[in-house]
């Protein structure tokens, strides 16, 4: 296929993905808006006022970056895992497999589709947060790059989960038992400096901590971790997950007999 044809195939898949989650907006875009508004009201306004300052900022300002990243992470992941698994389950993955669309375009289409949903939900949550607090921008480049890399990383995670899933149970196990605990323990609601030294060390094994803190640094200018190391870890994980996803697609794992 020529470069133009490759782009058409990629764009077609991306549009199909975006059309899917916008068609079911009441399941994909509305719930995170409501959930995050509740977080802002309860943790930010009601409880936050009694907690006081965190890393020199009031609690609402502290949790907003974490909650935005939490939305990006969960929505990027869940978009790809549910979309690709449904494609497998209903067998319309065959539409792609019989076509000349190369595997890397298939992967890119799903990853960018998931990222667009993650970023769109992130934008919705950011807009809602403005009703509760003022957002200051410390470094716009860090904000945009880290949110984009995070969306890509978790879209890849969702893709791998979908490849291995054989039932709808399998696509909810990882988000429920791995992703949610890691997100909650990834510094969304607290600074890890509050933890005993041992648990600070354990927390640094959690990759979500690096994303949340880097994003928070982009907004507030404060972080519990080294920003350079955070980028290195995130880009390294993306390279590993992308390579593994390509290997799975090339061998036909879960999609070809």
């Amino acid at each position: 296929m020529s470069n133009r044809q490759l782009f058409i195939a990629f764009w077609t898949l991306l549009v199909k993905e975006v059309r899917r989650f916008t068609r079911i907006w009441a399941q994909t875009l509305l719930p995170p808006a409501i959930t995050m508004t509740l977080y802002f009201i309860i943790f930010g306004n009601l409880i936050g006022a009694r907690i006081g300052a965190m890393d020199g900022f009031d609690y609402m300002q502290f949790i907003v970056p974490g909650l935005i990243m939490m939305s990006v992470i969960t929505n990027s992941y869940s978009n790809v895992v549910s979309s690709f698994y449904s494609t497998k389950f209903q067998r319309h993955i065959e539409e792609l497999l019989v076509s000349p669309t190369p595997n890397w375009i298939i992967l890119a289409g799903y990853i960018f589709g998931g990222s667009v949903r993650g970023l769109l939900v992130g934008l919705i949550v950011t807009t809602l947060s403005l009703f509760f607090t003022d957002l200051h921008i410390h470094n716009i480049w860090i904000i945009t790059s880290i949110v984009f890399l995070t969306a890509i990383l978790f879209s890849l995670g969702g893709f791998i989960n979908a490849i291995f899933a054989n039932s709808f149970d399998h696509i909810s196990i990882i988000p429920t038992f791995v992703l949610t605990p890691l997100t909650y323990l990834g510094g969304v609601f607290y600074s890890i400096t509050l933890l005993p030294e041992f648990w600070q060390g354990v927390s640094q094994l959690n990759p979500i901590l690096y994303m949340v803190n880097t994003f928070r640094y982009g907004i507030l200018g404060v972080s519990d971790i080294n920003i350079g190391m955070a980028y290195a870890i995130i880009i390294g994980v993306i390279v590993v997950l992308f390579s593994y996803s390509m290997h799975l697609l090339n061998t036909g794992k879960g999609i070809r007999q």
Partner: protein
Amino acid sequence: MTTALSIKDLRKVYANGFEALKGISFEVQEGDFFALLGPNGAGKSTTLGIVSSLVNKTSGQVEVFGYNLDNQADRAKCELGVVPQEFNFNMFEKVEDILITQAGFYGIPAAEAKKRSDFYLRKLGLWDKREEPSRSLSGGMKRRLMIARALIHEPRLLILDEPTAGVDIELRRSMWEFLQELNASGTTIILTTHYLEEAESLCRHIGIIDGGVIVKNSSMRDLLQQLNTETFILDINRSLTECPVLEGYAVSIQGDNTLRVDVAKSQGMNGLFSQLSEQGIEVTSMRNKSNRLEELFVSLVDKTLDAKQQGSDKDE
């Protein structure tokens, strides 16, 4: 003549150890209408699955119009359209979107995709349903949608896996006409079917696969010439208590007012009718006992089964 599909020593062993294909080889020439027949589990769908890139082969070679599926997959796939046995499109998408999206996967620009989509939606009687979600279509319409989708990139080779399964007679006939028209315009067609009448009516060449091996691969004419006798059922004007003796013909009473007659290929039918007339028996209607191809198919598949049983007897 160009070879549309070339399969050499194709072998497939599934993860559970089942050997679905045992090194089959055959070719389909450009412009042909080819039937791939076989009982359930014979290896038809596995063969077509490998050609369509939906099943990984264990070994062997597949070429579509000279493009090897191993190292020129994108070129081979552009020459190939596939209509699977089961519905495999997104039931929530609109009919038109399914076609335009599929065109996009072949790198066809949106304007051209829309033009082609309009053409095939009209051609296959789906124009009025173009804005409907595909789940709202009837079974026959869903099949036609899959044919339109397979043709959207205008392939030179079209593969149909049981395209008329579960389709009513009227629709089946209209699909036959459409496929014949398509074949006449130059598209090579390969189909699998359990309706042997369909294969006999449409196809010029036939391959019969059983137990993962090709047991017959010849032209339809050559195959049908192998039939030595043909059996006819005659409806007659009265009930007989004794079977009439008709010289040169094997006759038996099939039921009330019905006779069964075996006619050798070398024999004419005039002798049969004149002898019946002499005995005061009037024939009101006549039909083949079964489809001619069906008789051959059953005998070929039975032979394979017998050979297998003898083999297993020896093993014991």
